[in-house]
């Protein structure tokens, strides 16, 4: 499957109407990823609306309610490729009310494109989305200063916004080389796939070229191996009578046959006897593999347990502190009980203390007795059973969790373990 092409996952971000969907539509159009029937549909709808240009946002705003209001409500996942790269783009909503959907779209992305309307500059939603990109530890941020056509392609405007944004970068965990600025007009296609003649003062790459030269190696995290057991495979057939394979996805680092492993929570040790990928036996697996592992000894290991190298065991605790982002309108309150899902493992969790609500403009914190929809805060939990975790900084998959509320079973919060 396009094995020779690299895969890059991108999310858009920025305030309402900054032009995120238009930008993605434009990228699709300029890379010839829109088929003629889709272009015709956009032409038809644009004309119906009385526009004298093609409204590219119609390429991604797929819901009736979105097209009616001209806004994005939920994430759209868009796929396109160039000769060198496969892209998955999550086009997220800018509206404050739908920040939770922005978090959803950005959580799996390596790159965030934050759009800023050149006429408006850095505004509250820009702070918030940059803060979330920082919280999610997204590898790379492109700040696209859009609608340059409406400010006469003026370099001064660009420089002013860049300076304002640099103040935020200084307060974040990002280093300068993780951030790039590009002046664009999504509507007109300036500096999207084509170098703009209107802005000769800008000598950097076009957006598309910039995305293509990013190296996914720099975008992937590497840490230590974590193998949460997802499903135990027991064929019970004659040919495979005694086979007991622990299946799951491998995160963080390699595992190979012969590795000494520790099993959590039992803390028993064993050795990897074989690694299976479908009908092949393999010697070693890289992170991101969905595999099945057998062990040298008969052990008690089931879904939700974890297999790790004995040389690097994670923390196992019944208490933890996390940064929480509230993604549901039901607020998180002290004393509240939730199902905490950490990877494929579920335990019960109780909110011990809400330490603070965090200002998303990097200006500090305030006290709070609850976290409301789209709030971000620091929270202490007590768990019914220990979970085996790393900090989010060390290992994204093993350092994050969701909270499920017990009434409707909605996903109400996402947590980043500290």
């Amino acid at each position: 499957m396009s094995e020779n092409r690299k895969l890059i996952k991108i999310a858009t971000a920025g305030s309402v109407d900054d032009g995120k969907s238009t930008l993605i539509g434009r990228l699709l159009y300029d890379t010839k990823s829109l088929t003629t029937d889709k272009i015709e549909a956009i032409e038809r709808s644009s004309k119906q609306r009385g526009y004298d240009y093609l409204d590219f946002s119609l390429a991604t705003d797929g819901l009736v309610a979105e097209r009616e209001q001209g806004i994005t409500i939920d994430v759209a996942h868009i796929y396109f490729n160039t000769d060198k790269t496969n892209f998955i783009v999550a086009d997220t909503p800018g509206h404050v009310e739908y920040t939770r959907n922005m978090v959803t779209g950005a959580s799996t992305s390596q790159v965030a494109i934050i759009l800023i309307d050149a006429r408006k500059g850095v505004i509250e939603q820009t702070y918030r989305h940059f803060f979330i990109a920082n919280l999610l530890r997204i590898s790379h941020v492109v700040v696209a200063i859009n609608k340059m056509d409406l400010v006469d392609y003026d370099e001064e405007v660009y420089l002013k916004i860049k300076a304002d944004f640099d103040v935020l970068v200084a307060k974040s965990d990002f280093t300068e080389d993780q951030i790039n600025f590009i002046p664009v007009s999504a509507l007109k296609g300036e500096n999207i796939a084509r170098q703009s003649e209107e802005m000769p003062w800008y000598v950097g790459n076009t957006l598309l070229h910039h995305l293509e030269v990013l190296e996914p190696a720099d975008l992937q995290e590497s840490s230590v191996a974590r193998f949460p057991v997802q499903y135990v495979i027991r064929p019970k057939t004659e040919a495979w009578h005694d086979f007991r394979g622990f299946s799951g996805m491998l995160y963080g680092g390699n595992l190979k046959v012969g590795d000494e492993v520790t099993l959590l929570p039992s803390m028993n040790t064993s050795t990897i006897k074989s690694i299976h990928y479908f009908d092949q036996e393999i010697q070693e697996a890289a992170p991101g593999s969905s595999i099945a592992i057998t062990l040298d000894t008969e052990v008690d290991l089931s879904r939700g347990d974890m297999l790790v190298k004995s040389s690097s065991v994670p923390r196992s605790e019944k208490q933890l502190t996390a940064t929480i982002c509230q993604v549901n309108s039901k607020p998180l309150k002290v004393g509240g009980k939730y199902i905490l899902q950490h990877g494929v493992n579920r335990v019960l969790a109780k909110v011990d203390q809400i330490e603070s609500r965090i200002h998303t403009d990097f200006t500090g914190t305030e006290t709070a007795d609850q976290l409301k929809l789209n709030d971000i805060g620091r929270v202490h939990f007590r768990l019914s059973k220990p979970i085996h975790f790393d900090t989010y900084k060390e290992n994204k998959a093993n350092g994050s969790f969701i909270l499920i509320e017990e009434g409707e079973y909605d996903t109400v919060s996402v947590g980043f373990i500290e």
Partner: protein
Amino acid sequence: MNNLLIPNPKEAESIHIIREVAAQFERPVLLFSGGKDSITLVRLAQKAFYPARIPFPLLHVDTGHNFPETIAFRDKLVEELGLELIVRNVQDSIDQGKVREERGRYSSRNSLQTTTLLDAIEEFKFDACIGGARRDEEKARAKERVFSVRDDFGQWDEKNQRPELFDMLNGKIHVGQNVRCFPISNWTELDVWEYIKTENIEIPSIYFAHEREVFLRDGMIWTANEHVFREDHEEVLVKMVRFRTVGDMTCTAAVFSEAVSLEDVVGEIRDSSISERGARIDDKRSEAAMEKRKKVGYF
């Protein structure tokens, strides 16, 4: 023995999702249409549980207007892999008076499938239905989660979807609710074809160029036979065609093609300037056709 496994990220993600379905639900089922996407799903499910068998049955909602090649292929696949297949017929829903057959020029049984599907879900108490929908197919699909919760009436609440963070899937539901699970959400049509080619997966013959009796209407190529309504002036021609998507005969248009091998097909898809859904007559009914169908419980 292979040395180091470097995963294909999309395949690994799909296997992860399929294992989550098996682990989180009591009675999952794989919705099998006989098309390339559901055939790909079967291969992924094999990979997810090997050397054990796939731990859930396949359900085919048969409109009665399927291509005979698809049905023959289905039965052979089920036989060879030792799978459990459940078939429920739209004809029965019609006979029971639950749905009414459409008449006239654009009549199709495609939308009638929903009733038969919801009845089957209730009959077998399925709590999860695995489907082969991809987000690149259609603009409403592009908005859907991997685990998509449906209420007692099978309805999709598009403005109120559970956020899906990282690869953590929340399949917790109440009795009566049901989750549609889409393991190949992030695959494109080209991904599927390239996968079928690399994995050497067998697919029904109608995906390859063949001679067929067809007629032209609204710029699309329709199959000419007794299930498809045709006006007298619509002339039957014999042409070399193939199908890019395989559904009910009444809503699946063919494309002119000379592609007789997988290699040819992949090449054709790569250069194609028309989307796969461009050949779906059911989508042309209105701009929001898919979203409307999903809201009432369609796949």
